[in-house]
């Protein structure tokens, strides 16, 4: 299904998956962090464990990499780290040691190609030296599939930038529900914009009591060429952190690549860029 006007995903609610950063740090301090593992031939243990510690200390630092299709997994990481940091480090540690692991009843056993690729991604900015994040993003893309991945299901070199890693709205909702065990409500679709009268009011009503993720056409606000005619399709997932209005100017503050971005746009541009609004229980 690629068209969703309004859809709720609540099939996998888990009641007790919350944990704290302190519990996660205590756990990681007790692990032998020097062990190399032949299952992941290109993952360096020091870079792996340093990265896990960074994820705990600064969860907003998750960086999906330059020119990749990992943005949806980046947004998912934000939600996972809010809910269950201990679950994340336990999962990553087990995955590193055994080559397979379970996260909230989701069994992950990545393909050999993915295990070989982790630690080799290059020229992606700081993701180059973040071996845990490389592993995490690749494993998520390997596990969760949507219709955009139909013709490219097996990982080949360079597929982090291709349809193999792409995510549509329905797949994103499913991932959030399954990984975080929370109720997810989405309006919008992959092709048609949400049936919302006033986007600003809709978003500002929900942002305090929920986590709000947006599926947007980033090409309008982050132009890459000077063509006036552009395909009107969504390209990017972000986590909305703040929204305020001053006259017709709307200031958005959102999280995407390792930090927050602040941007001023008109109400008309806001309407133009949003294809999906995903409201997630806190």
């Amino acid at each position: 299904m690629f068209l969703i006007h309004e859809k709720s995903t609540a099939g996998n609610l888990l009641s007790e998956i919350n944990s704290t950063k302190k519990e996660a740090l205590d756990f990681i301090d007790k692990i032998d962090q020097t062990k190399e593992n032949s299952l992941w031939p290109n993952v360096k243990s020091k870079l792996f464990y340093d990265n896990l510690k960074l994820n705990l200390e600064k969860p907003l630092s998750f960086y999906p990499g330059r020119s990749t299709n990992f943005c949806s997994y980046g947004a998912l990481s934000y939600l996972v780290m809010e809910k269950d940091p201990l679950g994340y480090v336990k999962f990553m540690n087990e995955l590193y040691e055994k080559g397979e692991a379970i996260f909230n009843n989701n069994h992950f056993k990545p393909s050999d190609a993915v295990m070989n690729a982790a630690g080799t991604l290059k020229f992606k900015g700081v993701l180059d030296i973040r071996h845990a994040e490389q592993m995490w993003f690749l494993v998520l893309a390997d596990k969760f599939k949507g219709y955009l991945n139909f013709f490219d299901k097996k990982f080949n070199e360079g597929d982090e930038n291709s349809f193999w890693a792409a995510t549509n709205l329905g797949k994103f909702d499913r991932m959030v529900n399954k990984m975080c065990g929370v109720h997810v409500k989405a309006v919008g679709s992959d092709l048609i914009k949400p049936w919302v009268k006033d986007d600003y009011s809709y978003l500002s009503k929900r942002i305090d009591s929920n986590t709000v993720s947006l599926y947007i056409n980033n090409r309008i606000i982050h132009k890459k060429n000077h063509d006036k005619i552009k395909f009107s399709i969504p390209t990017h997932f972000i986590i909305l952190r703040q929204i305020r209005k001053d006259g017709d100017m709307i200031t958005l503050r959102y999280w995407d690549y390792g930090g927050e971005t602040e941007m001023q746009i008109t109400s008309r541009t806001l309407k133009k860029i949003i294809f999906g609004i995903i409201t997630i229980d806190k």
Partner: protein
Amino acid sequence: MIRLSFISISCLLLVASCSTKIISTNIYQEQKENLDNIERHYEKLNPANHFSLAFTDTKFNIVSLEMITDTLTRIYEFNVTEKRLVDSLIKFNYDTAGIYYLIRKMQQSKVTWINSFDYYVNDLPQQLIILSIKPVTIRYIFSPPKYVALAYFRTNQFFDEKGRLLDGRRTKEVRKIKGQVFYKITDRICYTITEKYR
């Protein structure tokens, strides 16, 4: 007969639509001094307060300024004559005169984007500066735009016999930046032709 001509013209248009031709094949050499000056000037300004500049219109009047800190990136779009631009630069402690000089030079040389990139060699951070130029082109209907992107490395790089940028001294692996193969101009500077300016 009319129908045949129409079909022939349509076919020609379709064939021609496959590619955009860049008029000059030697943009870097023609504008070497200006381009190197822009790069040097950006390199001087950038470390104090990290930023990138992009012209989002073809007349080089609208500039998208990204002001980047460790935790927050502010993205604002201005007309270069707007007072809001100078106000924002002052508010966030940027070198206003320096950035205005850079904007003027970029307009003159049709540089549509400048930014710095981090990359890693032996797990150690390195930096390069990329600038994109909007060249004069012959563009057919439906053909994609073309830009010339220049990458300025701080140290000498390695290239194969075809002039392609390599990942290192002991490898034959071609290094791609944003999915593009780059070709040698000098030991430190290389270029690619791309459909996106950033």
